């Protein structure tokens, strides 16, 4: 069953930045884009177990903190070596000051 879960507050993320969100034994990365939209992906890079919340956001790209693999966080698309496997993404909506992500629980 899909459910909307509060991930963080709107003000918890700077523009063009990322934060970590843990829920139900899983971990996610929540992004705020330069055009002020919010996105969510799995927290760990698909290459190795580095958390993307320590990564670097430029425009629509998240760069993994460890091996510099890049993904488009809006679609999860891997953008070339060393990452080949896309990131899972999750629907996001903003409700007042809250950022919600839709998870299947």
């Amino acid at each position, binding site marked *: 069953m899909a459910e909307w879960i509060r991930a963080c507050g709107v003000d918890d993320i700077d523009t063009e930045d990322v934060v970590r969100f843990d829920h139900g034994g899983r971990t996610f990365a929540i992004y705020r884009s330069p055009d002020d939209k919010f996105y969510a992906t799995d927290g760990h890079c698909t290459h190795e177990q580095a958390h993307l919340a320590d990564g670097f956001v430029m425009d629509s790209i998240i760069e993994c903190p460890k091996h510099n693999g890049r993904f488009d966080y809006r679609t999860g698309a891997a953008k070339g*070596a060393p990452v080949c496997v896309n990131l899972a993404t999750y629907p996001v909506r903003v409700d007042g000051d809250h950022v919600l992500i839709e998870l299947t629980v």
Partner: protein
Amino acid sequence: MASDAAVIIGAGFAGVSAAFAMREAGHAGPITIVGDEAHLPYERPPLSKGLLTGSHTGLMPIRKAADYAVAGIALTTGASATGIDRDRWRVELSTGHALAYDRLLLATGAAPRRLDLPGSDAVTIHTLRNAADLARLQPAFAGARRLAIVGGGLIGLELAAAARQRGLAVTVIEAGPRVLGRGVPEALASVLAETHRSNGVTILTGVAPASVSAAGVALSDGRLVEADTIIAAIGVTPRTALAEQAGLAVAGGIVTDNMLQVAEGIFAAGDCAISAHPLFDDAMVRLESWQSAGDYGVAAGRNMAGQGQPIGVVPWMWSDQYDLGLYTAGVPAAGATTVDRIEDGLVTQFQLDPSGRLVGAASLGSGTSASRGIKIASRLIAARAAPDPGHLADPSRPLKALLQ
């Protein structure tokens, strides 16, 4: 001469990165990677980290076997190149076969320095560079109680951390005045050394091993470091014998131009190669990190496919020890001034050359928290920026603002 054939000697990260980059850059002819190990090409960083502590099991392939087939890259493993016949454009292999090339990449890597001391013939002195070394070290680790590590560099300290996590008594013997004397600022090295000590590692500096025996390592000052297992982690030397035999220029590595070319049709990349770095006054730089092997491998592959792009990537590396992550970018310059930035749990040191240009940075924090600042520093170094030292030092001012 065969039609447009590429041969890559070395199946490490540089060689594999070059092969795929060459194909992605449009090279249509055959590509063959020759590797002297039997394994599918694998990542080396976990060897001194998770594979020793047991948190990882099994070698981590750089690419899946199927990826080579899809890209049309032939993999010849368990074979070494024994000679390069530059007149006939052929590489001779240990199998007795020869491969014709039009483009040849030397990605032969580096070999660990051996500790040659009185007694070293009679005891096993481990090194750690490849899967075979790991296969010898793992059972030794399982049965060991006291470990002596000669060399306080990154590999020595990563081994020390892994050994402590396995419950071994560990002594690190470093001949220099401090650990990590090459390439890591003292402010950060001292934090790491203190972390090792608080985790129970004995670090001895300013003292050299004099001999080894079944009892352990005897030091130049007469002390004995008792050990049942000894590891030498005293650096690597570039594997250049093949290049030298072929009459190619070798000076602290296989000498390349700024396109990573060595001679007509021959390129070099990775730990074996030394190149003038355009961001650092064309200083001859030989890099030994995973990131650089990949970056230079990709650049070599593209240039072998005819793209002709000069190199200019900023060196970058990381090291994991306990729950700490060390990240560095750039090349520490002689005579540089340093700026420290201290923020919650994160120590960062920037190095500025005499004109104020940022040339190097290093940062230490828990997990991967030090990465982001070093990514920003890396971009500033690439842009030849001279950031305001007051801004760099002020933790209330975001580093990212310097990129605008």
